[in-house]
């Protein structure tokens, strides 16, 4: 059961408790996604700040379903801002040591992951809208097939077995999923 938007907009404490429990996993996961490599200890603080920033924005949303993508978008921007600040500070201090044992120093191939992320250039609201649209358009199992191929490195045969699909249809799902991503996020990333 989703929290009641009207009650949230009225400031009902109990319903806000419910909303915080619902949104917490999202904002924490987004913060961890961006910060786990360099500043994993900051993820929880970023998640809390995200929810605090979200509270007044609830007046601007029309449906409660909008809150998750919006929370994810805020968390993403906050995490990227923190990375930019910290990297800028390090550069200002002229430090050259690696930011974490497993990564190169600042200016290495890892740092642009924070600064050059095409998603970071999107306005908060626009990013939230694109997340929301992607979740709505990637019908099951399209999103899972894309993730299995790109993020988990599964082969066509493994994906077919996992989702009970014909091997020949895996490519069709990938193609349609990519077409949807391209349509929503911009052709070849140029609009990002």
């Amino acid at each position, binding site marked *: 059961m989703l929290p009641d938007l009207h009650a949230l907009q009225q400031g009902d404490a109990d319903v806000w408790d419910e909303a915080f429990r619902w949104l917490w996993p*999202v904002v924490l996961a987004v913060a*961890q996604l961006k910060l786990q490599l360099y500043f994993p200890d900051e993820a929880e603080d970023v998640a809390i700040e995200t929810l605090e920033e979200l509270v007044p924005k609830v007046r601007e949303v029309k449906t409660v379903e909008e809150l*998750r993508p919006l929370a994810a978008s805020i968390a993403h921007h906050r995490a990227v801002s923190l990375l930019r600040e910290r990297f800028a500070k390090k550069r200002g201090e002229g430090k050259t040591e690696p930011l974490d044992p497993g990564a190169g120093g600042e200016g290495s191939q890892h740092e642009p992951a924070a600064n050059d992320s*095409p998603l970071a250039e999107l306005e908060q609201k626009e990013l939230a809208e694109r997340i929301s649209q992607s979740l709505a358009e990637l019908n099951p199992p399209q999103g899972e097939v894309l993730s299995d191929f790109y993020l988990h*490195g599964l*082969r066509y045969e493994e994906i077919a077995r996992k989702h*009970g699909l014909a091997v020949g249809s895996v490519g069709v799902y990938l*193609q349609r999923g*990519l077409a949807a991503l391209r349509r929503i996020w911009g052709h*070849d990333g140029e609009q990002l």
Partner: protein
Amino acid sequence: MPMSDQRFFDLAMKAVAHQATDTERAELDALLARQPELRAEFARLQADTRLAREVLPLLNVTEATAPELPAWARGQLQTKVRETFGRRPAPERAAERDALGRLWNWLPEIAPSGPAGAAEGAAPGMFWKWRWVLGLAAATAVMALLVLPVVTRSAPPLIQVAMLDTAGATRGSDTNAWSLLRQSWEKATIDSFTDPQALHTWETNWPAPNKSPVVKVVFDPATGEVRLLGRWKGDSFAKTLLVEQNLATTLEQARSFIKDRTSR
């Protein structure tokens, strides 16, 4: 999509994901040499790959459901709620509860024949009258519980059927599929789509809720699937059936599934 295009796509995808075997890589290179115009498409798929690797993790975590909010964070967040909405929500709710309690206490004064009045020594006749009212109300509720499911169960499902044919609806196999769909759901309208996006719009466009369940049946020849999407009584369901033996058998399975889900 012609088979050769799909083959190129599959080879290119495997190549960009470093999953192509030597044979597949050689086949792709030969295709690119033979059709240089495919190089632009290959470059586009490489760009798509970068986009997907950036976007998909964010989409995945947006649906996360664990872990739980730490208890220590609650106070800080509730402070923000109070600051934003300019009041103290919890005490206000307590005040509402107090008001309800007062209303409950006034009931014996408004209707002295009620239970509180009886307990305080009102006439026994008035007490029995009150019990009659309660008894009638309970009986009405029981009748409603018994009759309503019978009424709602009798409404037949509204079936909507669609077929996705990205290659165009002129081949013999599609005509056959169309006939089978028509035989399975004689009264349903059958729409045909060549664009997956248009089909998606159709899938997400539901008629206003009424007494009947609504079920959308989608046949996708390219993936060899029959998808069933349904809505009834504020609930929704989805099921994907693979066309393993033949389409007729799968459509029969679909009919059984729909009957089972909409007769509950």
